[in-house]
């Protein structure tokens, strides 16, 4: 192990050695690292499928693969990215690592359950990969019947069970977070002294616990239908395929907020630290997270404007969808006001945060377009939709994830990453991302449907731009992987608080000891008290026992 700077010399990384100590660990920080490795692996797999999609779409003809292969490829991309990367990424890695430390606890409420979540995730992931190797599925990530009913000859059962099991990994993680935030806070850590990261993770966990079981039972019924001919969704067995869509989106729309809320959690921390100001309107930002979680359960019908839903239902869902824009806009405005007259510095995490605000705004506003009943009918199942959710999922979630990873990397490993390369990769990600997905808005508006491997030649220029952008994006993702690994050995020693940030996690050594705190903390001040008289502590070795 590297000679990390730490008060007692031992930390969570070198307290115990050997593979066994990692695979049987109950330490939330080690489990976060396990997730980091496995989630990164699935991101790589999902990314490879994305590259195959973009390669195929480089030319109008279907010259790289058959249409059937293409169906399998985009299904694999969607399933891996949504269920095995986007949903677990920030909660299971950053949330796991940070929530107990941020609230002043020694660990999560249920450490064994936390480890079980990881094993469920790995088991499900292995199962999904096995299914892909056996030929995969061609249903898209949404598993709509009749694509997924008995007409389909692909591995729906295996992938369905994998997503089912993975759902329970998420449910248990969410449950663990909820209970931890309720019961494990340090003395003085009141609800309104919690960092906004914790508020947003709380909202996310609510969706995990209340939404995921619905998709779990839905997929179980789907599997039951294929294995035992229980007729629920297959019309020939007396079922209704549209019911599947209702049940699926009742979870999967809130699941979109499982993906974006943790990213918003990260952004609040980054904006406060690099503006050196308390977040403007703390209470409103906190409540807006809860509002997004609650409203998220009421808008699933906007995925079904063209699925035989009545016009009246469509109008109501359209209206409710607009309401989600309010708490989302509150966040964006409050982050912007935090910047105003702040002492803004542009380190790598802040570049990601600012990128997030811009891209999420575009993604969010096009969400309002799509929530508008009339416009949505025009662009349903076109690349406009694809571009919209990639602006939210990649421009939002992934930017937040990368920003957070850079921000807390020194805390997790005790080493700094090289700032120049960090800024360069942030720039590449931003440019590559926009080049990839902005043309898709135009393509979609022109009418290019999603999920087709051929298209008319007049759309080639825009598709080539998109594929070129995807290559830039890939470089932007590979770079951090390289310099993060490099920094483990050669990075500058970070010290407790390299960013001079506020929050309990910056008062413990980097990397933190196994039980996080040398002395049980007592909290006496609000979050983000950057103006609190005390000059921020200098980087490095200064002893930090203010409590």
């Amino acid at each position, binding site marked *: 192990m590297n000679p990390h700077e730490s008060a007692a010399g031992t930390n969570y990384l070198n307290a115990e050695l050997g593979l066994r100590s990692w695979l049987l660990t109950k330490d939330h920080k080690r489990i976060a690292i396990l997730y980091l490795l496995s989630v990164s692996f699935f991101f790589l797999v999902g990314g490879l499928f994305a590259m195959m999609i973009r390669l195929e779409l480089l030319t109008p003809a279907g010259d790289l693969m058959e249409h059937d292969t293409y169906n399998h490829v985009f299904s694999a991309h969607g399933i891996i990215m949504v269920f095995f990367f986007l949903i677990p990424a920030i909660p299971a890695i950053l949330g796991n690592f940070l929530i107990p430390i941020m609230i002043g*606890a*020694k*660990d*999560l*409420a*249920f*450490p064994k359950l936390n480890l079980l979540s990881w094993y469920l995730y790995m088991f499900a992931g292995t199962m999904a990969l096995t299914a892909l190797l056996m030929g995969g599925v061609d249903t898209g990530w949404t598993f709509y019947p009749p694509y997924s009913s008995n007409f389909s000859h692909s591995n729906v059962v295996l992938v369905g069970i994998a997503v089912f099991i993975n759902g329970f990994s998420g*449910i248990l993680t969410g*449950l*663990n977070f*909820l*209970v931890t935030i*309720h*019961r*494990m806070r340090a003395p003085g850590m009141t609800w309104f002294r919690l960092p906004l990261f914790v508020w947003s993770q709380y909202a996310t966990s609510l969706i995990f*616990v*209340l*939404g*995921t*079981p*619905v998709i*779990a*039972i*839905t997929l179980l*019924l789907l599997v*039951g239908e294929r294995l*035992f*001919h*229980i*007729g*629920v969704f297959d019309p020939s*067995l*007396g*079922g*209704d395929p549209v*019911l599947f869509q209702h*049940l699926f989106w009742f979870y999967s729309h809130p699941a979109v907020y499982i993906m974006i809320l943790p990213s918003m959690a990260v952004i609040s921390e980054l904006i406060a630290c690099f503006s050196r100001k308390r977040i403007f309107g703390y209470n409103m930002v906190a409540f807006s997270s809860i509002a997004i979680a609650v409203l998220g359960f009421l808008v699933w019908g906007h995925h079904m404007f063209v699925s035989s839903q009545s016009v009246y239902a469509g109008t109501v869902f359209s209206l409710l969808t607009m309401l989600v824009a309010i708490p989302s806009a509150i966040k964006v405005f409050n982050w912007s006001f935090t910047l105003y007259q702040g002492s803004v510095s542009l380190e790598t995490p802040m570049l990601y945060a600012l990128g997030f605000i811009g891209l999420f705004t575009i993604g969010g506003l096009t969400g309002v377009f799509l929530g508008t009943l009339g416009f949505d009918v025009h662009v349903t199942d076109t690349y406009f939709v694809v571009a919209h959710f990639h602006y939210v999922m990649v421009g939002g979630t992934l930017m937040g994830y990368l920003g957070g990873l850079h921000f807390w990397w020194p805390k997790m490993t005790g080493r700094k990453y090289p700032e120049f390369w960090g800024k360069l990769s942030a720039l590449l990600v931003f440019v590559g991302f926009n080049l990839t997905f902005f043309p898709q808005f135009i393509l979609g508006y022109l009418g290019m449907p999603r999920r087709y491997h051929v298209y008319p030649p007049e759309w080639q220029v825009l598709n080539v731009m998109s594929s070129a952008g995807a290559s830039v994006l890939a470089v932007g993702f590979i770079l951090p992987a390289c310099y993060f690994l490099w920094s483990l050995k050669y990075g500058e020693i970070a010290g407790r608080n390299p960013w001079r940030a506020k929050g309990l996690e910056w008062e413990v050594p980097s990397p933190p000891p196994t*039980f996080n705190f040398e002395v*049980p903390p007592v909290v006496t001040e609000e979050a983000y008290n950057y103006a609190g008289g005390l000059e921020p502590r200098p980087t490095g070795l200064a002893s930090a026992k203010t409590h």
Partner: protein
Amino acid sequence: MESALTTAEPTHLAHQFDSLEQQQQTATLGMWFFLAQEILFFGGLFMTYLLYRWRDPQAFQAGSYTLDIRFGMTNTLVLIASSFTMAMAVRSAQTDRIKALVRYLVATGFFGVTFLCIKYVEYSDKWHHHHVPGPLFHFAGPMGQRAEVFFSMYFAMTGMHALHMIIGLGLLIWLLSGALRGRYSARYYNPIECFGLYWHFVDIIWIFLFPLFYLIGRHYHGVA
């Protein structure tokens, strides 16, 4: 906090908690969140049931009439009895009567097994009458295949409920072996309490399943 550590029984206090009281509250809250998750899990099934019943009430009435209300009623009483013994088990643990705790846990398990045996008799009856959905499904009378969706819901919902019973019985055996080894006392009975919450929840699901499948619409049979 240091003092709390010294007063608590070190064997039962996990490292992440400051006191046994905090540990108990935390575990109980976790169980409640888990039950919230369970409600949504069954909620998908209830939603599906409602939709299909609303769509074809006559088929549901016809299907419902083939279920034997005597079995359903007996099972309801058996589960209510098991809920009572489970509540008494928790009470016994709270008042430190460990022998009574063991007896009540055994009684709870007995009722649980009885329920599953009766369910088995009902299922095999359905099997013999070709009322199990699938290629062999056959339903005599004017409803014909329309009744299949009723039986789909019947097997999906009671099956999922029975699965919860089986998991519960597994947990019960684990608690029972702990109780026999003197693991629980008035100071530490949290696992019993949490299991009790789970067991009552599973019973309540049945309290809804019984009228939905056995009772509603029975008196229409002559008309249909």
